[in-house]
C-alpha cells in the first residue's frame, strides 16, 4: 500500500520551461498589441487641449511658407496655426475653399496667423489644379507618407481643420467644412491679441 503510483509516461511529460515561458510571453505580446490597437481605435482624434506633436510639412514649390518649401510646426510657435486638411477629390473641400482663402487674406498680413493646407492622399497634378482653380495662396503641401494626418485624426473625413494656439496647444477642431468666413473668424479672433 505504500508503493508510489505514477501516471503513464505520456502524461508525465510537459513542455520545457523555456517553451512555456516563450508561449506565455508571446500570448502576452499579442494581447498588448491588440489592447493598444483597440485603444487607438477608440481614441482616433487629437483632443482639444492637447499639445500638438511636431510635424514637418513639405510644401508645393508654388505654395511655400515665406521662401521655404518646408515648414515645421515648432517653428511657428508664437503664432496661431490653422491646419486645413483637404483633397482635390473632396467635394465639400471645394465648398469651403473660398472661405479659408478669404480668412488667409484677412489674417495672413497680420503675421499672427499661419494657414497650412495639407493635401491628403491626392495626385499632385490634380492638387495643383485645385489650388489654382480656387485661387488659393496660403502655404500648401502634400501629406507625404500620410504622416501628418494620423497625428490629428486617424479616421479623417475631408475636410477637417485644426487650430493650434501660440503655445502649440490644439484649441479647435472643425470636422467638416466651414460654412462661412464668419465661422472661421469666430475661432481665430479670440486667439489674437488686440482683436
Amino acid at each position, binding site marked *: 500500500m505504500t508503493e508510489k*503510483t505514477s501516471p*503513464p509516461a*505520456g502524461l508525465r511529460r510537459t513542455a520545457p520551461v523555456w517553451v512555456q515561458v516563450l*508561449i506565455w510571453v508571446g500570448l502576452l505580446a*499579442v494581447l498588448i498589441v491588440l489592447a493598444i490597437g483597440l485603444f487607438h481605435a477608440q481614441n482616433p482624434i487629437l483632443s482639444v487641449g492637447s499639445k500638438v506633436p511636431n510635424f514637418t510639412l513639405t510644401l508645393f514649390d508654388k505654395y511655400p511658407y515665406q521662401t521655404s518649401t518646408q515648414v515645421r510646426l515648432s517653428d511657428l510657435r508664437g503664432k496661431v496655426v490653422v491646419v486645413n486638411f483637404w*483633397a482635390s477629390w473632396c467635394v465639400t473641400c471645394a465648398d469651403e475653399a473660398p472661405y479659408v482663402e478669404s480668412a488667409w487674406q484677412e489674417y495672413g498680413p497680420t503675421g499672427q496667423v499661419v494657414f497650412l493646407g495639407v493635401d491628403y*492622399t*491626392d*495626385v499632385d497634378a490634380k492638387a495643383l489644379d485645385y489650388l489654382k482653380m480656387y485661387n488659393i495662396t496660403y502655404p500648401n503641401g502634400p501629406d507625404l507618407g*500620410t504622416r501628418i494626418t494620423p497625428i490629428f485624426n486617424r479616421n479623417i473625413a475631408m475636410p477637417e481643420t485644426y487650430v493650434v494656439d501660440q503655445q502649440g496647444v490644439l484649441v479647435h477642431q472643425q470636422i467638416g467644412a466651414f460654412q462661412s468666413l464668419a465661422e472661421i473668424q469666430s475661432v481665430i479672433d479670440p486667439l489674437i491679441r488686440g482683436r
Partner: protein
Amino acid sequence: MRRFSWVPILVFISLAVWVRPVAAQQPTPSDDEVNAIASQLYCPVCENTPLDVCPTQACHDWRELIRQMLAEGKTTDQIKQYFVDHYGARVLSEPPRTGFNWLVYIVPPLAFLLGVFLLYRAFRTWKLVAAESAGDPLHAVAPSHGSAPAAENEYVSRVEEELRKRN
C-alpha cells in the same frame, strides 16, 4: 520628267520627319498592365480596397497616374515606391519586411508550427492512454472510460491488486 526627280526625295524626308516622333513615343499602357500594378496596391483612402477594383474617382486618378508613369518608362518597383513615399507603406498589399512588419511574416508560421506540435502531443497522449486502457479489464467492459484520467486508472489497478491479495 527630270524636273520632278526631287519629289520622291522630298516625300521620303517628309515621311521620316513625320514617323520619327511616333517611333519615340511609348505605347499607351493597357488596362491590364496598369491593373497588374494597381492590384499590388491598396486605395489610400478607402480601407481594404485593392486599387485595381476601387470604383472611386480618386482611385481612377491613381490608376491614370500609374498609366502615365508606365508610359514614362518607370518600373513596377519605382511606381510602388512613389506610392509608398506619397501615401505610406499601408498602400502596399504586402507589408515591407522591416521592423514590426516582420511579425506578419513570422507569427503565423510559428503559430501553425506550435499548433502542429500541440496536436502531436495531444494525439500521442491519447494513444498512450488508449494503449494502457486496452489491457485493463474494467475499461474493456466499459469502453466509455477509455479516456478516463490516468490517476483513475492507477487507482483502479491498485484496488484490483488489493482484491487479488485478499482472495
